[in-house]
């Protein structure tokens, strides 16, 4: 019964909520009406947008030294999670069989383990930093903590099911993934998609005014 629910209706429901939510949120951001900028353009807004999207991957020189840990842990977590999501053999197989209809080369097992370790360590350190730093703690909302803990649980159940020998552990992982997908569009996890338009908007605004920021 539980297997049927998790593999069937709940999976389709979570996928529907995720896709609809993400499209709706992104659409509402991109197509929202803005006031026309009547000022004379000093520079290209487009080049400013493109430049900012990529330049933000590195910290500003002035603050780089003081946020070294966040940058390193941030990259460890995000790259590790990206590798796990799209290059772990069970995920590649799942995407091929259930969603896309085609697959690609999966990571070898040792790379899977290393990616998971990077992702875990990065996430733990980032979440702890959010807790111990008074400024981060104050600006953090309940959503930030729920998003971090839910992502951790999804990764943890995934690592529990690594042996692929127990249907119950696989179901547990899939169930937590479904919860994560349902929570995703309503949470800070949306930054997975919104970071591009957010950076582009800021970059375009600055670019039009000739500000190199």
């Amino acid at each position, binding site marked *: 019964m539980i297997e049927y629910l998790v593999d069937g209706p709940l999976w389709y429901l979570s996928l529907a909520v995720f896709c609809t939510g993400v499209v709706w949120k992104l659409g509402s951001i991109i197509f929202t009406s803005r006031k026309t900028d009547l000022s004379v353009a000093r520079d290209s807004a487009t080049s400013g947008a493109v430049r900012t999207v990529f330049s933000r991957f590195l910290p500003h020189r002035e603050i780089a030294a003081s946020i070294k840990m966040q940058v390193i842990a941030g990259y460890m977590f995000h790259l590790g999670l990206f590798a796990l999501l799209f290059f772990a053999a069970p995920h590649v197989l799942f995407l091929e069989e259930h969603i896309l209809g085609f697959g690609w080369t999966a990571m070898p097992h040792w790379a899977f383990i290393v990616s998971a370790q990077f992702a*875990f360590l990065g996430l733990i350190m980032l979440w702890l930093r959010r807790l111990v730093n008074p400024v981060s703690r104050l600006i953090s909302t309940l959503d930030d903590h729920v998003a971090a803990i839910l992502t951790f649980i999804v990764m943890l159940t995934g690592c529990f099911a*690594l042996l692929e020998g127990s249907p119950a552990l696989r179901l547990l992982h899939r169930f937590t993934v479904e919860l994560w997908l349902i929570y995703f569009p309503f949470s800070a996890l949306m930054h997975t998609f919104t970071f591009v338009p957010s950076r582009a908007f800021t970059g375009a605004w600055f670019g039009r005014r000739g500000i190199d920021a």
Partner: protein
Amino acid sequence: MVNSRYIYSPVSPTQLTAIILFVVGLFLTQVSVAAVPQKHENFPQGVPTINPGSELWREIRRRDGSGEFNEVNQGLLVNELLREMRNSQQIQQGISQVGQVDSGVLINAQGKRWALFRMTTLADYSAIAIAAIFVIIVLFFVIRGKVSIEGGLSGNVVKRFSDYERVVHWTLAIVFLFLAITGLILLLGRPLLIPLFGKDFFALLASASKEGHNLFGPLFLVSLIMMLISFGRRNIYEKGDLTWLLKGGGLIGKGHVSGGFFNMGEKTWYWMVILIGLVISISGLILVSPNFGQGRLIMEFTHILHVVSAMILIVVSIGHMYLGSIGSEGALEGMKSGYVDINWAAAHHDRWGKLCREQDLIVSAEEYARLQGQTGSISQPVTEQGK
């Protein structure tokens, strides 16, 4: 025009080169992974030739002397040889076509002894050690009570640990707790959890624990290295530490004893974590990677070393958790907010506290509340006058 003095390139040439190298590296990794033929279920994996029994028969024929097959004699000889192997104190190594470690060993009598030791002595003593430390802590709390600060908390604080140091400490703590819980499930779960939850649930829990334990193991080593780099220098023993030890760290009897930034007890705990942690990590890596030529004997010895050293650290860490929280007034604040009360510093680390006063590093209660983002009224510190 924008003043060029205020413009800097967001990406320097060095950074740009690093990005390009990173992207190219990722691409090459993907290409190289694609180039290596992947294992496939339908792909022939070679013919297994494991036949350690052949050497046994060769030995039987040699002992029989005739070289001819005699069913009765062969049966008796087999039984005799098997009995001899089981009871032998030494592992009898034969010859096998399989060129792997221990593949010539038909019966490993030592393995049986190790399994028995692991299932009984090791598990029993581990459970007793954990129960004992809880009893000791409860007794200590009842007899000694909470170690309070003379004069109470003043409200004025000094910075003790940076954000990074606290992140390192809590990272190590989280990883250690996870490993300790999953490790204890694997060690003690069979006698303790099967009667409570049944075999099916325990099988599930043990499988999950084993995977989680193996995955998180290397993170413990990484956390230890970060701990060594962050706290190592301040934990080097110095003059006056021995006095602290001789006076029992102030826990026995009345009054606190002199200490620097870290006292003798904290330093000893720190080096225990680092050194025993290294033993646990290295033995764990040997256990988790059995494909480097280590035989069963090495694995069995390493396993015992891993469990014994982990148990020492688990037991002492329970004491550390007690003393760092409910056992000692004001101690947890250092790792929570990074600041400690100046009276706490004077009581437990008087030399460091004195230094903070001399260098005027004391932060007032109001300033501390502001730094912590407490906009409302702060709790009134308890002082001798305020009592």
